[in-house]
């Protein structure tokens, strides 16, 4: 999403040169400028994005490298120190490096899944609400079905049958999580399509699809972003759960993988809080950032909540 923002930044800058980089991103994402929660959320995202991009520079060790001390001893369960900021795992792997590299997996799953869910949900919501009739009926029954499939069990079964990969997880999220977005967008479209400017477009002979995408769609864009920002968190939580249960991709170091590794290696009974607390904290931060950004959209969409 941040890429989209940067791509459209230059023209915004020309229009109003005194807005900073953050302000420009916020405007491209249609966020209210100066909103405390939204700003905090975006800053958290930015920090994780930079970490993910520079992961190979930041990480002191290879995340899967087995480390030995100078005298040839395996560095198993080393406590945090200057050289190993978060200590090492039971196999002598650097926890901090795993945490840094894990940012990448989290953001890839989170952002792709959010884009897919928001896009499918918006499209179905738009079509369902705008055309109504049997199209609406059919699509909403489809939504009932998607909501009737238990999400985590479905993802587990899918991963074990068609192969565990990041894309399986994204696919499961895309298949099952669009109805919430679609339902809200549909009800919004129902009210937007009755507005005067839509009528004007219809009278002037615009085709239905043109009305839908040129006149109606821009009005519900903040809702799309709202659900997209919540979906990022959902996707990251799902990836972590699936990896924790052992159905995640085995070749990707992610936060869920770290937690599974810690759980399976008796880190809990050993009290290695330095191992299993940091990945959880990172997940919390990214998901909370999503909540904060979505709050920004809520204040924009439902200003009544403010007072």
């Amino acid at each position, binding site marked *: 999403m941040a890429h989209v923002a940067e791509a459209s930044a230059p023209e915004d800058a020309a229009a109003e040169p005194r807005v900073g980089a953050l302000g420009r991103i916020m405007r491209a994402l249609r966020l209210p400028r100066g909103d405390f929660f939204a700003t905090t959320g975006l800053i958290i995202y930015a920090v994780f994005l930079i970490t993910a991009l520079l992961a190979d520079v930041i990480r002191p060790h290879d995340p899967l490298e087995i480390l030995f001390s100078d005298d040839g001893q395996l560095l198993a369960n080393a406590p945090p120190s200057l050289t190993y900021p978060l200590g090492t795992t039971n196999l002598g792997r650097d926890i901090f490096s795993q945490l840094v590299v894990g940012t990448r997996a989290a953001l890839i799953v989170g952002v792709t899944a959010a884009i897919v869910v928001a896009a499918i949900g918006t499209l179905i919501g738009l079509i369902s609400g705008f055309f109504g009739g049997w199209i609406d009926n059919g699509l909403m029954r489809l939504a009932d079905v998607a909501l009737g499939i*238990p999400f*985590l*069990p479905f993802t587990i*079964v899918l991963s074990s049958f068609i192969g565990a990969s990041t894309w399986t997880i994204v696919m499961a999220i895309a298949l099952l999580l669009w109805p919430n977005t679609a*339902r809200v967008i549909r009800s919004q479209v129902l009210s937007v399509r009755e507005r005067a400017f839509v009528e004007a477009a219809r009278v002037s002979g615009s085709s239905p699809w043109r009305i839908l995408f040129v006149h109606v769609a821009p009005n519900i864009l903040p809702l799309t972003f709202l659900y997209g920002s919540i979906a990022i968190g959902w996707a990251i939580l799902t990836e972590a759960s699936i990896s*924790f*249960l052992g159905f995640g991709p085995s070749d990707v170091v992610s936060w869920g993988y770290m937690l599974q590794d810690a759980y399976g290696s008796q880190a*809990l009974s050993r*009290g290695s809080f330095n191992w*299993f607390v940091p990945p959880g904290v990172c997940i919390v931060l990214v998901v909370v950032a999503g909540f904060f950004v979505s709050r920004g959209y809520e204040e924009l969409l439902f200003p009544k909540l403010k007072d």
Partner: protein
Amino acid sequence: MKSVLSRFAQMLFVLWVVATILFLMFRLMPGDPTAAYIDTTFTEEQQQQLRAAFGLDQPLWKQYFIFIANAAQGEFGESFHHRKPVIDLLMEVLPNTLVLTLSSIIVAYIFGVLVGSWLAWNRGTRAEAIVVPTVLTLRAAPEFWLGMVLLATFGFGLGWFPSGGANSAGAAYGSEWSRIFSSDFLHHLFLPALTLALYLQGLPLLLMRSNMLDVMQEDFVMMARMKGLPEWVIVLKHAARNALLPVMTAFAIGIGQSIGANVVVETVFSWPGLGRLLVASVAASDYPVAQGAFLLIAAVLVLMNFIADLLYSVLDPRVSHGARR
């Protein structure tokens, strides 16, 4: 009445589609379709019997009808590993999952409703500035991670609670009820239920808070104020009762969803429930059990969605039939 029937028909339709998707999914799995029911270690006689029962020698469309007919009767075949009918295995673990889910969700919703209304009444205070972000953070935390931290702290670290399972090894009970109400069981239940409750309380709390804020703007609350009713009467009798409606539907949906989402918490605490059975059977390629567990979880989810739908229109007559949330 007619609308209840049509909703019920809709629920059956959804359940049927979900079962169909499940049937097709289990035909996606690697290997021969008969692998869904027949393990190579079964005796020839057993294999014959299962082939006949599930029509595995029949064409796919016939297998499908047999599958639906069997599933409707709770017949899911025989477990590869436990060598028992799947339905027996499911019924063995179902009470554990129900107790875990219901106890945690009830605690979470009572807490959420009370604290949510209290927060609405104390809008803009320092309490709000502390509680709301805390609640958001708890909702953002992965359930299984919350469980891991609690388990490491109170289970292993302080030794207050057992490290997993639902009963101590070797304990014998006269009946299922005496097992569930034994102090040993409750001792095992505490941490997993607390984990789930901590995660679940956020939704009712935030819902209740925002509903109360909405309801308090309504005319009838103003009217009650003008009548000079005491503040607590206004809160309890007038505002809270109306703000509670959406929370009730969320409660019903929440039960359905957490039965499926419990998989992770049950795994962390080695809780012998439906979710853990599903994970174990998928990992061990015990397909009949996986299929049965999945369908049972889906059935509960669909049923609770249906109940939520009914509650929604029964509790709030303003909702016209057919209008959807």
